[in-house]
């Protein structure tokens, strides 16, 4: 009986955000015929997994985990992804962009081109293959201005497309999950969380995260205002030189366009302090693909990106 305690206080903002996310996941499980949870090994989807444990344990998750692998991912993250799925004893489905390239569903101009935008093709193919009617993802509204206008239950037509002008009204916590065959919804249980909330929750729950989120020495190239990590896909152009700096990643995605920030934060506490003080948005600092134009994310979402 050691765990029993009585609540004498009002709930914290993290308690309320957690309960909201659990409620959303249970609605998906109960009302959607064949849902999946998108798990990349990144920090937001790591939080989603803990929320799913809170929502469904002691039973198994009533959905598989799905990863759309660009094969441009950091090896530390892929190792972590596989290990975490195994520890949880949950089914992990991986669909790779190589398959889409082989089937000529994706045609790259250059082999080292960023693959983020093409994830949509592989994702839509996986949705069709498994007949998923709902995919839960770790997107947050504070990440980007197109996300800020998206519903928690985001309806997609039979082409997988998002129509920002024609979204279903979303009132109270009453989610309309009904779709016609071929249509599907994307569900974002942590829509209302910010980057800082995520880090505070990771600390509160003592969640393990891939090592590249912590400060480590890495070879990078300065390009514009970003630091590009040197890898087999990224090497210096003329006039650029390789530097070895102490950096950490704020997001983990395609290696060709995900940039670390200079940092010496080696613990979660350090990261929380840095996040609270930072003056640059998460995507602004770390995603080259969102800097292409003012509407990059909006355009990608209209193509089926999550």
């Amino acid at each position, binding site marked *: 009986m050691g*765990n*029993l305690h*009585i*609540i004498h206080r*009002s*709930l*914290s*903002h993290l308690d*309320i*955000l957690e*309960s909201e996310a*659990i*409620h959303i996941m*249970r*609605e998906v*499980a*109960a009302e959607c015929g064949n849902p999946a949870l998108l798990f990349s090994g990144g920090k937001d989807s790591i939080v989603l997994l803990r929320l799913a*444990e*809170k*929502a*469904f*344990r*002691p*039973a*198994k998750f009533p959905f598989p985990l799905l990863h759309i692998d660009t094969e441009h991912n950091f090896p530390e993250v892929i190792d972590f992804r596989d290990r975490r799925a195994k520890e949880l004893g949950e089914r992990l489905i991986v669909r790779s962009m190589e398959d889409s390239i082989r089937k000529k569903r994706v045609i790259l101009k250059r082999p080292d081109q960023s693959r983020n935008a093409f994830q949509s093709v592989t994702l839509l193919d996986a949705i069709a293959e498994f007949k998923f009617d709902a995919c839960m993802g770790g997107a947050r509204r*504070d990440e980007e*201005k*197109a996300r*800020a*206008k998206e519903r928690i239950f985001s309806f997609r037509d039979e082409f997988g497309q998002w129509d*920002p*002008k024609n*979204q*279903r*009204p*979303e*009132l*109270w*916590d*009453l989610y*309309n999950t*009904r*779709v*016609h065959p071929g249509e599907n919804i994307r569900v974002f249980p942590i*829509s*209302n969380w*910010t980057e*800082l*909330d995520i880090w505070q929750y990771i*600390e*509160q729950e003592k969640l393990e995260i891939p090592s590249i989120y912590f400060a480590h020495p890495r070879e990078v190239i300065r390009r514009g205002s970003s630091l590009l990590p040197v890898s087999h896909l990224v090497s210096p152009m003329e006039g650029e030189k390789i530097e070895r700096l102490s950096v950490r990643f704020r997001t983990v995605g395609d290696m060709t366009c995900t940039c670390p920030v200079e940092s010496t934060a080696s613990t979660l506490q350090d990261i929380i302090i840095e996040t609270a003080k930072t*003056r*640059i*948005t998460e995507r*602004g*600092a770390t995603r080259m693909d969102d800097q292409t134009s*003012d*509407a990059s994310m*909006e*355009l990608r979402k209209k193509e089926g990106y999550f």
Partner: protein
Amino acid sequence: MKNIELLRFITAGSVDDGKSTLIGRLLHDSKSIFEDQLSAIENTTKKRGLSGVDLSLLTDGLQAEREQGITIDVAYRYFATPKRKFIIADTPGHEQYTRNMVTGASTANLAIILIDARRGVLTQTRRHAYLANLVGIPHLVVAVNKMDLVGYSRETFESIVKEFEGFASGLDIKSIIPIPISALAGDNVVERGQNMPWYKGETLMGVLENIEIDHDINLEDFRFPVQWICRPQTGEWHDFRGYMGRIESGSIRVGDEITVLPSGKTSKIREIATYDGPLLEAMAPQSVTLRLEDELDISRGDMIVKSDNLPKLSKEFDAMLCWLSEEPLEMGKRYLIKHATKTAKILLNRIDYQVNVNTLEKEEGLDSLAMNDIAKIGFRVQQPLASDSYRHNRSTGSFIVIDEVTNNTVAAGMMI
């Protein structure tokens, strides 16, 4: 970690009232705008041939909006101070977007109604106040903006407040907080400024940080709509059967006597289970798993309540309805209702009257409703629903109406 509270609010007003500028100001002065966002809007301001930083550009999210210079949908913004985390639902003020305001308002603790000091109380001001009240927002801030353009005149402010209060006395608003501000210059938003020494009240940020919100949630009446049944049926959990859901209102303790609705069967709480271990007591809005002393037949859509505090159980309801769809309401057509965790067929059988949200006059004798119409209606449900009046309980008094053919959400309803 330090406990901070969560406050959700909406801003209602048109582009011309300076709503986007106000939100930009709140974010800017609370240091919630990031440098890259600031440099992006500086660039855009320059591209449009203007100078300085147009803070309204921060909230204009979509390409379509930036092209047209309008706000077309509800956008959510986040910022935090050491006292609270804030979620803003930014809703447009145009006439055709009543549905967006109702959407944004449905989860808000507080509404900021913007009035242009030069124009005073307008039709849209009345509409916004009526809607905020209809949706049961407990706190209303009347922000009289553009005070810099009326010479920071106390008389202008007071006469606008008087006119607003006159109108609002016909409504049932609990607390109205008037504040004279200039979103452009920053007066009384986060910083007090030098221009209105006659104003002794709190700044807008002061109100947002300090207003009491503990009582916004109903902590009296325990209501637990069952979302999901947990039956692992494996190994050590072979006999585990738990009812998962979120406590929508009230609180519950181990040993409490409960009733399951609509069946009326009774039992006692054996355990309040969570991933982090069992609790002796839990309260709204926690998500928990309830285990009962007895094996009862309970499924999703049922509601667990305390036996000494029962909601209304009925198939016949009166409600206020806000029609959201471009397809008008058709009497006699079958619709679905989603109420708590239950979805059921309904028959709308009466429109008592429609409310003209501009004059608050009631119009009778209608047999259809169009988008943005608000009406008192009567309906019958196929199966009995356990509900409370919306005034008493926002969670168990609210519902949405879904068109069974198109699957669209066509209306939002509030039980009377």
